[in-house]
């Protein structure tokens, strides 16, 4: 028997050959990488002064051990690597390893850019990696919430609102109870509450899910903003002063150079995020719950015929997603700065949504997407403090440009779960 997935894949391939002829997707991308790579080699190479070194510090101490690279040679070299992979794709090689080749091309382009920017200066790599992970945590949890909802067929545009509500509840209840743990639980419940409203209105009342998500974001902004102005702001000490989670040093592992400070000296929320990615990823593919979730998201009528309670599965997943996004919100308050600020989620929920699409609705993909956006964000603040020649406005755009490129260009053909966004009505 041939599964529905296989049929689809071969259809796509047949179609792409028939329609595009010589200019297949990998050839088109190859051409782009070739041009971009040559551009990098020429422009970044020429812009770098000869004889300058770019230092990538590996030690946590500023000015400690690091890699000293001759900036110009490496800027040109990495540009050429990017161009070469492009040429190879254009010539028809590596078509089967399109993903890996693309990764090589992009990474070498970024490295070429960095050699130019860092020339005559030093870039703390460990600090950069630490920040990447730190900035990615709310995004990881947010897009994981999206994965849970959308794999069972409910679009969640309300991630932004869930993060915001989570951040607010975390700060408020964390302050009242003077405990970061209470804040964390309250944040999860806050996010879960928005998730529950989303679930009821989408599943029971069949409201258009995208519209609903936007409305819930407005609702969350309004409620938290109002409560912040009226209660938190006048009584900061009592209501907006939660304790924060300390960084937990995992014994032995935390002492490994480079990797240790990045991976094993984080707050509990960061560890939780990574554990949740692994758990959800395994559960989706290996457990009964996962099979049911996917069935409901792809073909609810079939699932129903087999006795799976479609709406129950959806309710459960959307609310669980809300709980997880709420924890992501806690990462913004009790997981980092403590105090809540108006609209502090600042669009992170939408970036999480982009990470979800970039990651093709899989938990590990969402993790990678979130890390990519975290990296763009961390890079932006690192570069702007090196007195980069690129205007700071453009550097600020980095995460968003990365989002657009990633979602519009890199993912190529993605397929959402077939029943995503379609309410299930028994007939």
């Amino acid at each position: 028997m041939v599964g529905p997935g296989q049929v689809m894949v071969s259809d796509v391939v047949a179609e792409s050959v028939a329609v595009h002829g010589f200019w297949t997707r990998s050839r088109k991308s190859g051409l782009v990488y070739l041009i971009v790579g040559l551009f990098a080699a020429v422009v970044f190479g020429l812009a770098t002064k000869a004889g300058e070194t770019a230092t990538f510090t590996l030690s946590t101490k500023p000015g400690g051990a690091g890699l000293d690279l001759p900036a110009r040679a490496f800027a040109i070299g990495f540009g050429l690597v990017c161009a070469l992979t492009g040429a190879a794709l254009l010539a028809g090689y590596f078509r089967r390893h399109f993903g890996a080749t693309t990764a090589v091309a992009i990474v070498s382009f970024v490295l070429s850019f960095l050699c130019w920017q860092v020339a005559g200066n030093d870039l703390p790599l460990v600090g950069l990696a630490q920040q990447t992970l730190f900035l990615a945590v709310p995004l990881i949890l947010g897009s994981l919430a999206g994965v849970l909802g959308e794999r069972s067929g409910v679009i969640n545009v309300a991630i932004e609102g869930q993060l915001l509500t989570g951040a607010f509840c975390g700060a408020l209840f964390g302050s009242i109870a003077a405990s970061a743990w209470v804040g964390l639980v309250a944040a999860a419940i806050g996010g879960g509450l928005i998730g529950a409203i989303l679930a009821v209105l989408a599943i029971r009342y069949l409201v258009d899910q995208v519209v609903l998500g936007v409305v819930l974001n407005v609702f969350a902004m309004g409620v938290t903003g109002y409560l912040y102005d009226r209660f938190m702001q006048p009584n900061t000490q009592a209501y907006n002063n939660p304790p924060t989670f300390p960084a937990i040093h995992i014994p032995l592992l935390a002492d490994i150079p480079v990797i240790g400070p990045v991976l094993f000296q984080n707050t509990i929320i960061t560890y939780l995020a990574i554990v949740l990615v692994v758990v959800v990823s395994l559960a989706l593919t290996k457990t009964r719950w996962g099979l049911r979730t996917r069935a409901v998201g792809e073909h609810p009528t079939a699932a129903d015929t087999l006795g799976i309670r479609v709406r129950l599965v959806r309710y459960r997943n959307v609310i669980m997603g809300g709980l997880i996004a709420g924890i992501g919100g806690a990462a913004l308050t009790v997981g980092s700065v403590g105090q809540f600020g108006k609209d502090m989620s600042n669009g992170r929920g939408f970036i999480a949504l982009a990470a979800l699409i970039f990651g093709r609705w899989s938990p590990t993909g969402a993790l990678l997407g979130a890390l990519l956006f975290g990296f763009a964000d961390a890079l932006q603040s690192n570069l702007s403090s090196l007195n980069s020649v690129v205007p700071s406005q453009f550097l600020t755009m980095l995460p968003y440009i990365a989002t657009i490129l990633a979602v519009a260009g890199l993912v190529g053909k993605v397929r959402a779960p077939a029943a995503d966004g379609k309410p299930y009505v028994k007939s």
Partner: protein
Amino acid sequence: MKATATARWLLRKETVLRRVRGVRLVTVLAVGGLSLAVAAGCGKPPAKNASGGSGGGQYKACMVTDTGGIDDHSFNASAWQGMQDAKAADSSVVVQNTQSSSEQDYEPNLTKFVQAKCDLIVGVGGLMADAVTKVAKANPKQQFAIIDANVALSNVYSMQFNTAQPAFQAGYLAAGMSKTGKVATYGGLKIPPVTIYEDGFAEGVAYYNQQKHKSVKLLGWDEKSQKGVFANSFTDQNKGQSITKTFLSQGADIVLPVAGGTAQGTASTTAASNGKQSTIFVDFDGCVSASTYCKTFLTSVTKGIAGSVKDAVVAGQKGKPLTGSYIGDLKNKGVGLAPYHDWDSKVPGALKTEVTQIGADIESGKITVKSTAQPK
């Protein structure tokens, strides 16, 4: 057959009705959310302030905020504080405010107060200069005041602050206190009221290097090219934290954030270092306005908006003409350096004396601050 048809019809009707109810519920959520957002934006109900006009011996002072809103922990809050101080000082003063949620609101808000017959209308923020100029020209008999800008009209009183002077002192202090030989600064937006601090800070660090033959480095701002790090937000604390962590990983140990609420992210980061790193707050004395993090504030560069607004309102109430321009500087105590608070015992006596001396030298003109963002 007929029975199933009826059942199907009923089911469809039920589905349609459910959708209608759903849309109704969503509308309630949307309207509720929006009206709460608006209610939050409109500040306190003006019940006790709005009464009375210019008659009856009352002096009505009205303030239009910038987009930061009345609770920005920064210049809007200071100005409102000044208004309330004036009210406390003189019972015939009534005050009221309206908040601008975007730059498009400036003109209508100012015009609204002209129509409400306010005796004095205070516009807060340099971005409002054009709107104040326009409305003041159209209403030559109405008294206006503006903060952080210079409007050369006879019915406008301009209040500006030369914060580059105390920032110069702060730069010298930071350079003297840095153990790592690196200090840092970043701004909320690249606008003169922000960069003026950064310029002064940069010059203070340079002056220290010149005097002591040291080479303390400043991260995040280059006065010559006017380029630096900006959070592009006056509210995002996590952004502030991320920028601060970048600076710390690059070796800085003292940070001057000129970014309103974003600065809280810097304070919370340096506060976690057990005294190895510190923050210099701006606008307010940090130990008063963000007292949670008092232990991490080396000092604060203060800007006496509240005091000068209060003076202006009280003078206006007494019938004195408000015109020309006021520039707060070290000499008239319109700006200054806050006490060291928790750091008092850690700053060496000699350094304290030097910082004070620099203040005196700036007042006497022995040291000139070069920042082009300074008010003239």
